[in-house]
């Protein structure tokens, strides 16, 4: 087991923070404007950020580095708990181009009160908040993790004000390539996943090692913190947990749920198949211990000229059509929708791959995930000692219809009974090419049911650009991650060195409903 030097023992303290948040706020608000103008940092990696333009008058004037009031956003109450090396009075307004780019990207929630959400004081109707302050190396995005609408996921949990601070490196720094790493190609455990899936057994922890998970008592984990494809060492994301801070301040979570209801699988399949399940809403959001996004819906995150939400939930939700989001018909560049913990932005699916001298985009493409659905049944093994993974047993189970073309769920599960297949549109291999197709697919063990397909040329298909293992790509403006409508939906690893937020497990073990100090819904 690898030692973890920041394994996030903060969840216990988090509860305390909630209960005393008001007192903490009163004590912590007075910020000293320390005037440290040494905000530059060594940009080791192209950050993929277009800094906001500054005119001459901006540059001549003394920048206002005095921090804004932080008493209206509960996220700040957690700053020093999550990052003991930082204090609120050491932070300032962001003045570097990278910090300003983050600040400019964030949603403006001014004047918005969302009925049906629980405010920090327990009252009905919370105001979402997302604010940023910087030090020399990082931007700190504080939020109460609420979108601009009340998520209509079934009320398993309250949608409650829940503090979080995302720590974003201002300048992405490379990972030490000599770091010990697991191998993407040598992943163990997918046969075990298949074995459990055949009999619908609920796992106790992820059986594979594509991602990072450690039991609460630290007695078991999914291997090393890093993973390699043989050419590059990446940092693993959580198997279930935050991977990025969205422009709303709501965290993007890993492409998977946890052991239930679909073991380490995407909740998208189920939600898409039956909109009345209301497990995750069509903006990709659902409440839990902290409200989070499992996928990205650009329309829900679109901003008006003032940075405020441009669309209501219904307009955003009805725009989430997987087939439409895979069409090679981009007409304008996607905006930044979030910030990964290694400092790179996350965008929607329309990317500019080349620019003319005047800055106009000359090659606008639809980003496609590099992962295809290859089937969980492909891990069947007649030589295995596991009882349910021989090809005869697998074929006789519902996996016998996996990857079949379909029109609806009835094609996948004609006989009822135990059948965990959905008819879902996703990317599959079709000979030498990749295509979007409706197939019978299992939502379980997404990392094992999908396979990364390496493209010799990411631009080989007209109108498309294929993403790398981390769901990112080098664009005309630098490296960006993409929120895709197919697996892995958000960043699936960190290309560069992430901040501590990437491994903080505060929200993984936090009891649901703790955010507002209220009990969970049944």
């Amino acid at each position, binding site marked *: 087991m690898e030692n973890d030097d920041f394994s996030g023992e903060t969840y216990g303290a988090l509860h305390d923070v909630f209960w005393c948040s008001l007192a903490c706020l009163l004590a912590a608000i007075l910020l000293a404007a320390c005037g440290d103008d040494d905000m530059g940092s060594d940009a080791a990696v192209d950050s993929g950020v277009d800094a906001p333009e500054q005119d001459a008058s901006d540059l001549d004037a003394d920048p206002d580095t005095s921090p804004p009031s932080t008493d209206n956003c509960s996220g700040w109450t957690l700053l020093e708990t999550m990052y003991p090396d930082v204090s609120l009075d050491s932070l300032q307004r962001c003045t570097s181009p990278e910090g300003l780019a983050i600040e400019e990207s964030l949603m403006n929630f001014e004047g918005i009160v969302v009925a049906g959400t629980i405010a920090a004081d327990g009252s009905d109707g919370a105001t979402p908040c997302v604010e940023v302050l910087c030090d020399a190396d990082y931007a700190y995005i504080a939020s109460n993790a609420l979108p601009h609408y009340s998520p209509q996921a*079934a009320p398993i949990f309250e949608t409650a004000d829940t503090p979080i601070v995302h720590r974003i490196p201002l300048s992405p720094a490379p990972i030490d390539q000599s770091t010990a790493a697991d191998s993407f190609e040598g992943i163990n455990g997918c046969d075990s996943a298949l074995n459990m899936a055949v009999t619908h057994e609920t796992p106790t922890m992820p059986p594979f090692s594509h991602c990072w998970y450690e039991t609460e008592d630290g007695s078991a984990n999914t291997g090393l913190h890093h993973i390699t494809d043989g050419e590059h060492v990446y940092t693993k994301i959580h198997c279930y947990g935050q991977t990025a801070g969205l422009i709303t301040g709501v965290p993007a979570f890993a492409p998977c749920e946890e052991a*239930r209801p679909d073991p380490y699988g995407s909740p998208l399949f189920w939600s898409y198949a039956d909109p009345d399940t209301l497990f995750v809403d069509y903006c990709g959001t659902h409440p839990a211990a902290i409200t989070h996004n499992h996928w990205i819906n650009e329309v829900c995150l679109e901003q008006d000229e003032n940075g405020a939400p441009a669309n*209501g*939930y219904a307009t955003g939700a*009805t725009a989430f059509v997987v087939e439409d989001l895979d069409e090679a018909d981009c007409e304008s560049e996607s905006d930044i929708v979030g910030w990964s913990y290694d400092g790179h932005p996350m965008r929607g699916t329309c990317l500019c791959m080349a620019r003319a001298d005047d800055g106009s985009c000359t090659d606008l493409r639809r980003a496609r995930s590099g992962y295809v659905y290859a089937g969980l049944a492909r891990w069947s093994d007649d030589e295995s000692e596991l009882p349910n993974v021989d090809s005869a047993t697998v074929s006789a189970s519902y996996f016998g219809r996996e990857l079949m073309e379909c029109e609806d769920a009835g094609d996948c599960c004609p006989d009822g009974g135990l059948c965990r297949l959905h008819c879902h549109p996703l990317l599959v291999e079709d000979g030498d090419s990749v295509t979007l197709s409706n197939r019978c697919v299992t939502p379980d063990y997404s990392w094992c049911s999908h396979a990364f397909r390496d493209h010799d040329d990411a631009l080989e298909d007209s109108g498309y650009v294929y993403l790398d293992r981390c769901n990112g790509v080098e664009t005309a403006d630098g490296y960006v991650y993409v929120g895709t409508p197919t697996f892995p939906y958000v960043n699936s690893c960190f290309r560069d060195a992430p901040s501590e937020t990437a491994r903080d497990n505060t929200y993984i073990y936090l009891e*649901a409903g703790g955010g507002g100090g209220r009990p969970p819904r049944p």
Partner: protein
Amino acid sequence: MRRGRRSGWLSAAFVVGCAALPLPELAPNQIEYWVETDWEGAHLEEGVRVFTTDLGYVVGLESFWFRTTSVELVPCEDTLEEELEEEQEHGQANDAISQGLRTVITSLLPGRAYAHGSAYDHDISVSEPEDFDELLSEELHLRGQSIALRARYCELFSVHGTGRDQTVASLRGWYQLPGSDERIPFEAEHPLGVTDVRPLPVGAWNDALLPFASEVIVTRHPARAFDGLELETLPPVDLAYEVSLGLLRSRSLHWSIGPAEE
């Protein structure tokens, strides 16, 4: 039609059955779900319900359909644990019975939410009418019957989903901006599920009901469902969706229970 109600206030929690009864005697109790529409604040003009919102819009509703796919009671927190602890304290159930009962009850009744990503498990009290309600009418409609086994219920949970025609709510009418006489027509519907959890208020005794039989009446106030909305800013799909949320937020609940003894 609504039956007569002889009131007698109970505790704030909704009691189905009697928690003091020995657990083996917990028998299924009938629960009925009724819905009605209250048009207070509106007047009728040639079949159109006309009212003014809190922001000063005058709205005329020519039709308003709203679907309920499921409605159910939500057990109070820790109800099962409390019941078993009470039984053990009074020596009315030995460990074997308690364990057996626990197994039976947990197999029949909803599982609790897991810490993070769990589905919602319906309570045994669920009814799934899958019906549209036509809200221009003020009639009282029975929208489902079921049984309720838990000793204490605290909330009502409803899901308003799409059904076969992919529509949750559909409404047609017109509105006037504040201070304007111009009628702006609208026709709106949406396909997005909405949910509502609402605490049950203090209830009433009802001699017209069988012992331990209960009824819950959901009263909707469409004239308040448009409050807070700047109607001219909303695309039709958002209009229909926001009005649906407003309808749920503004609804009121009443419940009553039959006599505790024959």
